[in-house]
């Protein structure tokens, strides 16, 4: 170890890898991806991974990314729900590209991406 910067670099790299997964069990904001058979078949796995990667990459803190079973709207899978206190936003027919936008605008910018929500699709 030659300098503090070198230590800092290892710290930042590892922190991004560990912290998103391990330190947000009690986070106020929770993103839950439906991972039942229907969700997985429709591509929920890459969506879940995209949430984790985007959050780690952008250093977003205080967000837990978890999974749940069947949400009950199999035709709209992959589905993810964002919980913030009592509010819930349901995103449907997700792709990794859509996830990037949700992370940037909703989780960082605090403005839900209305066009991807179940409300927008059902109209």
């Amino acid at each position: 170890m030659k300098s503090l910067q070198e230590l800092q670099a290892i710290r930042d790299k590892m922190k991004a890898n560990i912290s998103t997964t391990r330190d947000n069990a009690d986070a106020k904001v929770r993103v839950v991806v439906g991972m039942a058979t229907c969700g997985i078949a429709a591509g929920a796995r890459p969506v879940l991974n995209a949430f984790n990667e985007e959050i780690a990459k952008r250093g977003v803190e205080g967000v837990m990314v978890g999974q749940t079973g069947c949400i009950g709207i199999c035709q709209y899978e992959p589905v993810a729900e964002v919980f913030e206190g009592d509010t819930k936003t349901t995103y449907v027919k997700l792709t990794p590209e859509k996830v990037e936008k949700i992370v940037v605008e909703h989780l960082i910018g605090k403005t839900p991406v209305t066009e991807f929500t179940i409300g927008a699709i059902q109209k």
Partner: protein
Amino acid sequence: MFRSHIMVCGGTGCTSSGSKKIIEAFNKEIAAAGINEEVKVIQTGCFGLCALGPIVVVYPEGIFYSMVEEKDVKEIVEEHLVKGRPVTRLIYDETVQGETITSLNDTRFYKKQQRIALRNCGRIDPDNIEEYIAYDGYAALGKALTEMTPDEVIKCVLDSGLRGRGGGGFPTGRKWALGAMNHADQKYVACNADEGDPGAFMDRSILEGDPHAVIEAMAIAGYAIGATKGFVYIRAEYPIAVERLQRAIDQAREYGLLGKNIFGTDFEFDMEIKLGAGAFVCGEETALINSIEGNRGEPKPRPPFPAQKGIFGKPTVLNNVETYANIPQIILNGPEFLNTIGTEKSKGTKVFALGGKINNTGLVEVPMGTTLRTVVEEIGGGIPNGGTFKAAQTGGPSGGCIPASLIDTPIDYDNLVAIGSMMGSGGLIVMDETTCMVDIAKFFLEFTVEESCGKCTPCRVGTKRLLELLDKITSGNGELEDLDKIEKLCNFIKEDSQCGLGQCAPNPVLSTLKYFRDEYVAHVVDKKCPAGVCKDLMQYKIVADKCKGCTACKRACPVGAISGNVKEPHVIDQAKCIKCGACVATCKFGAIIKE
């Protein structure tokens, strides 16, 4: 990038109940489910709730599975990890409330704890230096070397109010200042990991769960006092701790955190492990130093103190594992980090190993000043089987008993000494009404008699004679004047022994005699053991009215002491009875009683 981390406890407790097999099973099932690139299994340190081991925590949700068995793993993988449905039947029941799962930090066990020394235990993989670095590891060493002078480091530790966690409670900063003051061509830093109290496992758990914290702290101590070499004296009975610490030292060398020119400065530091054979006396600093030097583990008179003449006659700073585990956080966050927690004279937290008659056997860390009641009733979950709290023993064979009347005493160094016990390294053994206090005093004294190194007479002969007096009492041959003799002998041993072992050995006897004198008197005058523990003072009897003559006890008795015909009351022959209690366990009618 893994979406889920499975933390499996790899502490000694959970390892002995099979956590290694659980890790293997997880790896196998995860590969079978095809999610091995998404889910990572990590062996971590002690979570503290050893009574419920083996423990598995699944992140990101932080689901706390307890008493997991190998056969449960497949279900956790298929249900929780693949489908996102936690396996409710295996979750720690205090965190399950109907459909929702509450935070672990809200459980009675964790709520009032504050984990500083144990901060990384259960959070990181102790075998991976980069995980330690992720949680600010080695940043304190970096800060000390590049931004602080040795004097500033010492001042920071001094101002934090940190006192030695090994038992004595000497201010750590002052110890370091003494080490820095004495000039020599070579100085040493040493770590006392010779945890010897029966029932204590704080230091072992820290070394198993967060070995780098101790390495970092020792390097900081080396910088502060001008030492380039460190020794960790650890008992060979701690194989997992030794293995992880050695791996951690190797990694620290590989990353240039031990060796020459650390952080590009002139500072160099390296360390090695010295294995002890597990002698209690080697927890005493001068005996420990003798043992490191390759000599017999016997104490030496002080002065000279180790800070003047320690290992190989060179100035040496010796601290306990838990003391070191506090250091990096203090350096990183300033003295206020510690001195805002605790009581006026005892700052910070203390780790206790909870054992005995208590529900949540395990490892807890609480702010100094927390009452014994909080530790026993809330964190510890109370006494099993509806028993009542009788006393708690702190400080192991060197400490004493705290009776139920003092359960609201805030625990800190000075309060414990004032009530005739001591902090010790942190063993806390809870006793209920089925514990005989004379028997407990005898148990600890048997330990010190065995462990006395034999160098000085008061300890070698005195403890032996004291044990004989206790034996006389528990066998029903005691006389009232023996109690005075015991007190006199105790005080003599305390005043005249050379080292801490002998000076503290009478404490368990003195404190039980002080708080439970009536129990001693019952043994001596009434020839009864109120708790029904001392075999010579109790007997089993069959109540004729209740006995149905089923012959179950007769068949269970290993020595044929019970006689009687079918459907007639049976009788125990007291001359043959060995008081094993096998008959009581078999009687369905509650007809056999202990008197």
